[in-house]
Every structure is written in structure tokens, then in C-alpha cells.
């Protein structure tokens, strides 16, 4: 445990805009440790006079992506760290990180045989994406269903990649809560009991659920699952703390 938790200086390899407010930062690490899907890194920014700010960011990349890590970060208006990442960082810049961190909100192909239910709200999809990428990289056929809530079609992160990963037991359900493009066939409302019921229907009562998103969404979705008879021990949750879409996490 000790080594990965020392601070190290990573280098920004590339920056990819995902949506209007979200970018993925791929960082190369001098001292890379294989993470588990669902874990996060701590980022530390230091000013000349020694002032520092730290925040946590989930790993978006799969554990198989050796030597580097991708973080997908939403720009929070007036935020201290996310605005720096979005407005200042350029490829070649150096940034301090430590990790991987977290031992509970994790999924490893082969370790948990139960069907996988992943439920995301907004940028809460990030750690779940690491699980989905890991599942694909490891060749796992575990039946998996992702229910992913976004405001508008333009706010959906990883849309094309998710489309291409469909199949091999992976099914994806989008819901758009604010506006839907013409011809939209997915869900068009906030996650509710009926939606959760439809998504978990084929799995009966045995499954492993991971929920990540804004607090209210996590609370109400977990509540729906309990009502449907899913045992609390099968439900793992993560909230992102104070931030825009993940407000009050």
C-alpha cells in the first residue's frame, strides 16, 4: 500500500474534450501501480507560496492501460481545481498525483461472478466506465447492464465508445432527463422504480450493483433497488462530494 500513496509527478500526455464541460486528461506516471476498476487518484495543485489544493478523481481508464491513467473531469463553475485542469493545463504540463486509492467501490473481472448492474448519473459514469473498459479488456462475459442518466444528448460522456462496446453480454440504457433529440428511443425521465425494475429484471435478485452520481440520485436509486428486494450488501455507492452535477455528493 505505501508506495502508490506517495505523491508523484505525472505528465499530461493528452487532453480530450468529451462534452462542453467535460475533458479527459491522460497522464503518464513515473511510478505506475495497476489500479482496480473503480478506484481514484488524488490530485494536488501547489502555488508558488506553498498554498495547496487537493481533490479526488476517479480513474476512467482500465487497469490494463499500463503506465498511464485517464481522469475525466467536469468543469465546475468557480471550482478551484477543475477550472485549473480545464483552463490552464496543456499537454506536457506536470501535475502531482497519488494513488490508486479506494478498496470498496471496485470491481474486478473474475472475482465477482454475479451479473453486474451499473447505474450512473452525469460524471458519476467515470468509475463505472473503468469497470466497463476493464470488463472488455479482460474478455469477461459477465452479464452487465449500464443505466446512465444525463441531462441532454450532448452531455452524455463516452457515448460512441459505449455504443461500440455493446454486445458480449453488455447492454446500455440511456435516460435523458432534460431534452431528447428527435427519434430518441431511450428513456426520457429521471431514474425511477419502474426504470430500475426494467433494467434489473433479467437478473432476478442476485447481482452486484454499483451506483455513482449526485447524492439524491444515488439515494433514490438505492431505495428503488431495496424495494425490489435487492439485498443492501449487493449495492455499493459512491458520491462525488460538492460539485455541480454531483452536488452535495
Amino acid at each position, binding site marked *: *500500500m505505501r508506495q502508490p500513496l506517495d505523491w508523484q509527478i505525472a505528465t499530461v500526455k493528452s487532453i480530450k474534450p468529451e462534452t462542453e464541460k467535460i475533458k479527459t486528461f491522460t497522464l503518464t506516471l513515473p511510478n505506475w501501480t495497476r489500479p482496480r476498476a473503480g478506484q481514484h487518484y488524488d490530485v494536488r495543485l501547489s502555488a508558488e507560496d506553498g498554498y495547496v*489544493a487537493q481533490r479526488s478523481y476517479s480513474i476512467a481508464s482500465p487497469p490494463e492501460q499500463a503506465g498511464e491513467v485517464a481522469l475525466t473531469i467536469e468543469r465546475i463553475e*468557480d471550482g478551484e481545481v477543475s477550472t485549473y485542469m480545464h483552463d*490552464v493545463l496543456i499537454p506536457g504540463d506536470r501535475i502531482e498525483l497519488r494513488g490508486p486509492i479506494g478498496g470498496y467501490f471496485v470491481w474486478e473481472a473474475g472475482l465477482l461472478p454475479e451479473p453486474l448492474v451499473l447505474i450512473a448519473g452525469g460524471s458519476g459514469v467515470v468509475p463505472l466506465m473503468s469497470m466497463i473498459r476493464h470488463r472488455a479488456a479482460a474478455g469477461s462475459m459477465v452479464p452487465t447492464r449500464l443505466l446512465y442518466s444525463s441531462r441532454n444528448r450532448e452531455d452524455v460522456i463516452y457515448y460512441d465508445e459505449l455504443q461500440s462496446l455493446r454486445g458480449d453480454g453488455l447492454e446500455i440504457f440511456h435516460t435523458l432527463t432534460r431534452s431528447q433529440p428527435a427519434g430518441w428511443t431511450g428513456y426520457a425521465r429521471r431514474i425511477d422504480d419502474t426504470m430500475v425494475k426494467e433494467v434489473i429484471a433479467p437478473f432476478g435478485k442476485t447481482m452486484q450493483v454499483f451506483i455513482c452520481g449526485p447524492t439524491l440520485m444515488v439515494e433514490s436509486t438505492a*431505495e428503488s433497488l431495496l424495494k425490489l428486494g435487492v439485498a*443492501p450488501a449487493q449495492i455499493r455507492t459512491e458520491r462525488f*462530494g*460538492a460539485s455541480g452535477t454531483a452536488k452535495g455528493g
Partner: protein
Amino acid sequence: MTEPFVSREFVGKRRGGAEKASRLPPGQYLTEDFPVLSAGPTPRLDLKRWSFSIEGLVKEKVSWAWDDFLKLPAQNYTVDISCVTKWTHLDMQWRGVSVDTLLEHAELDRKAAFVTAFTHDGYTTNLPIADILNGRAFVAYQYDGSPLAPEHGGPARLVVPHLYFWKSAKWVAGLRFMEKDQRGFWESAGYHNHADPWKEERYS
């Protein structure tokens, strides 16, 4: 030593001014929110079946039902809380019963050196007894003048303000006194056994 690392062009927001900044443990930032962190779903507890117990290395186990717990002498607390996820909320207002008051009803065995706080949903967290005695911990059932909401640990949670907030077990069901230390839920999952925010004891 090499030069300390400086993030290019980083200045920072430095919210809150010098007085507040001086109350901020290293690596923390100020928030006015009350963020929620828990590993699983929020349990809804029935007050009729709620209880709080003191057990383990005590002469006799004591338990309170909800109505009796509310009759114990309570105090108001204004404390700063730091969560390992990095937020710090200054001057949070709680009402609850001091662990010292609870222990007036039990006789601790001299061998008792550690305590496990256990909860109605099966979570545990461990502390040396010195961290919960002498006014350092209380069982809260009100926050900001209202009953403590379920997602924040209601009806009652342990509050140990001087340690990272995961030590403040939500939905607390009791304290078990022990001779030997036994790692709790997060402490077994890579988090620090003691969790002092001023020493940045985040991970082990």
C-alpha cells in the same frame, strides 16, 4: 531536497480568509454543504426498534431505547468536521449526548483500551478509548436544530470531530469496548487506522 513542486500558473481560490484557512487541516477545502458519503444504501430505521448499547469489556451491558436515550442529558456542540474526501465544514451545529455521559451508566473494565462503534447496518469503525473520552465524542441526534436526516446517519450518529468523519459512524447502534484494536470497515479497506486530519492520516 529538491525544489518543492509548483503547478504552473496555479494560484488557488483561497476562500474564506486567513482565520478560516488556519482552521483547515492540510489538503482540505472549505465547504458550506453537508456532503454525504456512505458505502451503500441509506437504512431507514424504525425508532420503535432502535437501540443504543454499551457492551464488551463492561461490567454489565447497558442499552437504551429511543425514548430513554432522549431523556439523557444532552448538549449543543459547535464543531469543525473534516471528511477524508477533502471537505471541511466549519462550525457545524449538533445536539447529542456526550460519550462521557453514556459511560456514567456503565463500568469499564480496566483492560478496555479500544472501542468499536457498530451500527444498525453492519458498519464498524475502531478508535482508541482516549479518542472518545473527556468530551471528545458524542452521539448526535440533531443537526442544525432539526432531527438528523437518515442520509446523514439519523436517527443518531457518533460524532468524533477531531478525526476524519468516517470515524463518526452513522446509524450508530452502540460501542463495544475491547482490549485489542480491531480494524473497522474503511480501516480494513486501506484507510488509516487512526485518521487525524491535522496529521493527514488518510490512508494506511
